[in-house]
């Protein structure tokens, strides 16, 4: 694909290398999405076998991270990229770290799912958790889409959605506490449940970071640690600057 920030190079191999990195990152993203999907399915369908298999296949994600990392270092060492190319590599290296962490959280959810499959389930079958998972799943997808398309708008949308996820996590946590207070026999289950919710909330944060890296790659503005309104105005300014530069 012709990523905008991949400028034309006299060396076609260099171009190919950069594209390769971009594609590998997204392949890894696909793998993580799949892991996450299966972990959530394991919870929803009380499938302990599936949960364990998710936990066991986390090494694929880790191997992929190592591979992309090596590739990035090789390019940095041999090509000494600058400007947009450098941003692409830096964003890739940061994004795969986030993806690897999402993979770790999915592994955790898989383990919790296999434990939750053995206990008596509440009549709602963890509806709140599944709801939260659906939101987070959408965030993972959208953040990777934003990364693939270098779509700043979509990235900002994901960052806004994170707020909802935080609130939902809070609600689940409080509900779990109430259950535990009412009936101490549910403590084990509710603890596992809130761990899973916590993992989902963390994944939401990681997707937010991925969006930040995507925006950094597209515009070169570092928007970490700044409030959302600031970010929006900054990005739109950067957009204008870019338009003017054309």
């Amino acid at each position, binding site marked *: *694909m012709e990523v905008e920030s991949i400028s034309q190079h006299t060396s076609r191999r260099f171009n190919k290398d950069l594209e390769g990195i971009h594609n590998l990152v997204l392949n890894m993203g696909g793998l993580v999405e799949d892991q996450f999907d299966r972990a959530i399915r394991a919870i929803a369908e009380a499938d302990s076998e599936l949960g364990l298999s998710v936990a066991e296949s986390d090494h694929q994600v880790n191997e992929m991270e190592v591979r992309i990392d090596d590739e990035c270092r090789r390019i940095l060492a041999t090509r000494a990229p600058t400007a947009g190319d450098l941003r692409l590599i830096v964003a890739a290296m940061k994004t795969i770290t986030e993806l690897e962490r999402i993979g770790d959280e999915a592994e955790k959810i898989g383990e919790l799912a296999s434990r939750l499959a053995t206990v008596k389930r509440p009549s709602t079958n963890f509806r709140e958790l599944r709801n939260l998972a659906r939101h987070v799943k959408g965030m993972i997808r959208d953040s990777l889409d934003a990364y693939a398309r270098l779509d700043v708008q979509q990235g900002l949308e994901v960052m806004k959605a994170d707020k909802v996820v935080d609130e939902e996590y809070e609600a689940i946590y409080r509900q779990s506490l109430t259950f535990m207070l009412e009936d101490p026999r549910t403590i084990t289950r509710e603890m596992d449940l809130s761990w899973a919710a916590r993992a989902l909330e963390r994944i939401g944060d990681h997707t937010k970071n991925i969006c930040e890296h995507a925006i950094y790659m597209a515009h070169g503005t570092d928007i970490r640690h700044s409030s959302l309104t600031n970010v929006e105005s900054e990005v739109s300014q950067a957009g204008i600057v870019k338009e003017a530069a054309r």
Partner: protein
Amino acid sequence: MLPNRWVSHFVYAGAWLALALLAGIWLGNPAWWLVGALALYLAVTLRNLYYLDRALEKGAPVPPATRGLWAELFSIVVRLRSKSRKRRKRYRRLVREVRQSTRALHDGGIILNPRNEILWCNRAAVRLLGLNLATDVGHRIDNLIRNPDFVSHLENPGGDSVSIPSPAMEGGQLSVQIIPYGKNQRLAIIRDITREVRLERTRRDFVANASHELRSPLTVIGGYLDALAHDSGLNRDWRTPIAEMERQVSRMTRILRDLIELTRLESSQEEAPRDFIDVVGMLKFIEREFVSGLRTPRISVHFGTDLALLGSEAEVHSIFHNLVSNAVRFTSPEGSVHVRWESGENGAVFSVKDTGIGIPEELIPRVTERFFRVDPGRSRELGGTGLGLAIVKHALQRHGATLSIESEVGEGSLIACRFPDNRLVARGGPARAVG
């Protein structure tokens, strides 16, 4: 041979020069007259060339008809131009028709170039995959549809389609097939199979639940029958019916057990686990079980290799056991059954060859269907459940293995299972390795 217009052009040009030469001779200074005539000729030619250039490049109107070669050239330009205009119109209409008809299609279609970039997609593809026609053309499809199964299918598109969850529709399931065409172009066809998948799951759940529900009453009946059979005070006349009832109950139990096993195999999408299985030991064990039977054919087991398998022990046992017991069942006591475990090129083969009744050629593709029987009366009498080969097929699939059946009626059958390399390890070697 020169075209007519050129001949007449040369005639005219020659006449023109001759006229100038004559005028020169007549009035003196023929050389200057000739130069003047040539200059005039050149001027006219250059002017017409200029018009031709403009007509060809910018589509400017051609100069009003003069005569001779240039007039004809210009008329050719006009003719070509109107022809191409008509053709363009026709193509434009054709493209519009194609676009409209593909838009009406229910299935999604995406045209990909050799680098997997989206060249075009129809509206159904947009809806099913959540693409954005405005921004996604030119993007690599595997950057947007990142499902690992899809990506690996994109890299080596085999004949089969892959099933992936829809990124756009909650709970939706899609089937994607990549079809190569033209010069390195590829077409991805996307079908919404959500309903089929749901129906299939409902059917599977039904069979599983029904089998489970039937099992408990059957156990109760079996228990009472067992007690009755051992009751010495029972009227002698009841002996035979009760024995028959017991036989039927045990048959039903077997069928239910196989049904449950089959549903379990069907519903698990995961690959089989990779536990270490000592094939040689397992086959020796199975051999002993059948050799001890009274009215059984001669069984011989041949080991061409001592490779071990990585798989699910229960499933592999059920594969071997089912195949051997089938062979034994359909072979007369005078016949023989040869079981072989050999390594071949890319994989190892487990095969069972018998001299039994055989399977008619046209029925071979159907023998793995559930409850399919080549000879219904006979196999039921021999105690088969009709599910054995279906179980074998599904268990093999989970191990990435293939089943092949050769048979001739009256001569016997050869059934072979080919296990792939990545499921094989040396016996006694490391329990985990290779692949």
